[in-house]
C-alpha cells in the first residue's frame, strides 16, 4: 500500500485524527494543544480523540472508527503495539496515512514515528539512578500493571540497573492507575524501607502535587517520569532529583506536520524521528523551565 493519496479537493479542509493513549493522562493535553496549533498553522482540522481511560480495546475501536470515517490521516500514540499493528496496516492499505507518536508500533506499516522509545527512556532512568546511588543501594519501582508503555520503561530501567550488581530492586508497586494510591504506596513503602536508596516511578503520578512525596526522607532519591510544572517545583525543592520529559507539545505538532507533508507528497526520509528525551536535573532545570515557558507561550 502506498502512503500517498491524490491531493484532496481544495474546497475541503483536511481532517486528521490525533489519538492519545487515554484522555485522562494530563500530559497528553499538551499534545492536543500542540496538535491544534499545528493544525491552525497548516489550515487543517484536527480531531483529538481517544479512549477515556487507558483501554486498548476502546483505543482500537476509536482507531477503527476513524478508518471507516475516512479521515485524511491518523496520528496515534499506541497503547499496545501488537494489538494495533494489523489495524494500522489496514488504514494504510486503505490509503489513510498513519504516523505514531510517543509510543510506536514498529512492525506496522505506519509511515513515521515521532518520540522516544519507552524502553530507551527506561534505560535512561535506570542509568541516572545508578549514577546517583554510585552503583549500590536499594530501589523500589512504581508502575501500573497493564499498560505496555509503562512495562517497556520498567523493562529498560531494570536492564540498566542489572548492570550494577550493588543495586537491589526491592519492590515493584502497582498503583493501579490511581494517583491517590500512589501517595499511599509511597508513604507505606517509606515506612517499610526507611533506608531506601531510590524510588523510580515510570509514570508521572507522584509529581503532580507535593503531597505524595512528603514522606520521602532526604536520603532517598526520587526519579520520575514527566516534567509538568508541579514536577519542576518539586525538583527545585529537592524532593525529586531526576525527571524525564518528552516533547509533549511536539507529540501533537510533529505528527500533524508529518501527515500534512505526507499528503502533499513529502515522505519523511527516516521513519523514526527521535524527539529526544529531556533529562531534567538540578543542573538543567533553569534551562528546561525557560524552554517550557517558551513552548507554552508558543502558539498563543
Amino acid at each position, binding site marked *: 500500500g502506498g502512503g500517498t493519496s491524490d491531493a484532496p479537493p481544495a474546497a475541503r479542509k483536511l481532517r486528521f485524527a490525533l489519538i492519545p493513549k487515554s484522555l485522562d493522562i494530563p500530559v497528553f493535553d499538551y499534545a492536543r494543544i500542540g496538535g491544534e496549533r499545528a493544525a491552525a498553522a497548516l489550515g487543517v482540522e484536527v480531531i483529538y480523540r481517544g479512549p477515556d481511560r487507558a483501554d486498548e*480495546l476502546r483505543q482500537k475501536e*476509536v482507531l477503527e*472508527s476513524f478508518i*471507516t470515517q475516512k479521515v485524511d490521516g491518523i496520528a496515534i500514540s499506541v497503547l499496545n503495539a501488537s494489538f494495533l499493528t494489523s489495524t494500522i496496516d489496514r488504514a494504510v492499505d486503505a490509503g489513510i496515512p498513519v504516523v505514531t507518536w510517543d509510543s510506536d508500533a514498529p512492525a506496522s506499516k505506519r509511515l513515521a514515528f515521532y518520540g522516544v522509545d519507552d524502553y530507551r527512556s527506561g534505560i535512561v532512568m535506570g542509568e541516572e539512578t545508578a549514577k546517583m546511588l554510585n552503583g549500590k543501594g536499594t530501589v523500589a519501582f512504581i508502575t501500573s500493571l497493564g499498560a505496555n508503555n509503562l512495562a517497556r520503561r520498567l523493562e529498560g530501567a531494570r536492564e540498566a540497573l542489572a548492570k550494577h550488581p550493588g543495586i537491589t530492586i526491592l519492590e515493584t508497586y502497582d498503583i493501579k492507575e490511581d494517583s491517590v494510591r500512589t501517595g499511599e504506596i509511597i508513604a507505606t513503602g517509606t515506612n517499610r524501607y526507611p533506608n531506601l536508596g531510590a524510588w523510580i516511578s515510570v509514570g508521572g503520578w507522584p509529581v503532580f502535587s507535593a503531597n505524595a512525596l512528603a514522606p520521602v526522607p532526604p536520603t532517598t532519591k526520587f526519579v520520575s517520569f514527566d516534567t509538568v510544572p508541579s514536577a519542576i517545583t518539586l525538583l527545585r525543592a529537592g524532593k525529586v532529583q531526576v525527571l524525564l520529559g518528552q516533547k509533549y507539545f511536539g507529540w501533537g505538532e510533529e505528527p500533524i506536520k508529518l501527515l500534512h507533508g505526507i499528503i502533499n507528497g513529502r515522505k519523511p526520509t527516516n521513519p523514526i524521528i527521535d524527539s529526544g528525551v529531556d533529562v531534567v536535573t538540578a543542573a538543567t532545570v533553569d534551562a528546561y523551565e525557560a524552554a517550557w515557558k517558551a513552548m507554552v507561550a508558543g502558539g498563543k
Partner: protein
Amino acid sequence: MKQLWQVREVSTLMILVLEVAFFTWYLWPSDGGHPFLNVGNALLILKYSSIYGIAAIGAAIVIITGGIDLSSGAVIGLTSVVTGYFFVQADWSLTASALMGLMVGLSAGLASSWLIVGMRLPPFIATLGVMGIWRGAGYIITEARFYDLSAKLPRNWTVVGVSIDWVPPLVMVALAGTFQVLMKRFQWGRAIFAVGGNETAALFSGLRVGLVKTTAYVTAGLLAAISGVVLAVVQGQGKADLANGYELDIIASAVVGGTSLTGGRGSVAGAVLGALIFGVLRNALPQIPGATFYDRVIVGLAVIVIVVMDQIMVRRGEA
C-alpha cells in the same frame, strides 16, 4: 394478544432506531460518503458491541433472577488470557484453547453461584470479590504481560466464507435468539423469572431455587467467557486488563434493554439492543469534532434519557 407497542423489546428497538436516525442526520456529510451510515461502520459497531452484547445476555439472565454479576469484565479478561496462554504459550489448537477459555467462564459461574447459593452471600458482594480474584489471576498468569494471538492467526481469515469480523455479531445474534427462546418458551426461563419475581414463592412452589440460580450464574459466566474468546480471537490479544470495568457497561446494557434490577423482569434480546445503543454512542461520538471531553457526560445523559423514555413508553403502553 399483546399490542406490538407493549412488547418490551420494541421500545428499546425504537430508541436504537431514533439514535441511529439522529446521528445519521447530525453527521450528514457536506460531500462524499456518509461517515456514519455505511456498511463498514455498521459492521464496526456490531463487532465491538458484540463483546458487550454477548455478556449482556448473561447479565440480563442473572439480573432477572434478582441477582447481579460484577465479575463479567474480569471473566472476559481472564478468558482472553487463558485462551492466549494455551494458544500461544502451550501451542494448542485454537478450538482447544477456546475451550479452555470457556472453562474459565464455567468455573467463574460455579464459584459465584457457590458463594451466592451455598454460602448465601449477597450477589453484589460475592461477584465483587470474585471479580478481584479473576482479574488478579490474569495478572498472575501473564505477569502483567500479554499473549499475542494475532501472529499465529491467519490473516484475512474467513470462516465458511465470511470475514472473521462478521463472526462476533453473528454469534451474538445466534445466542440472543437461542436465549430469547429459552427464556420465553421453556421451563428453565420461566423458572428464572419466577425466582426473580418472588424467591420464597418459588421455593414454596417446589422450584429448585438454588439450582435455578446456579444455572443463571453459570450461563452468565459462560457467556462472558464467549465474549472473552471472541475478544481474544477477533482482536488477537490475551491480556489481563482487557475489559476492565466493562461489567458496569454490560449491566447498563441489560438495564437499558428493559431488564429490571429488582428482578423478575427483562429480556435478553433487549440486553443486546442495549449493547448496540451504547455501541452506536461509542462509535458516533468520536466523529463529532470538539466533543472530546463531553463523551462521558453525553453517555451518562444518554443512559438516563433512554431509561426515562423507555419508562414513559412502557407506561403509555400499559395505559
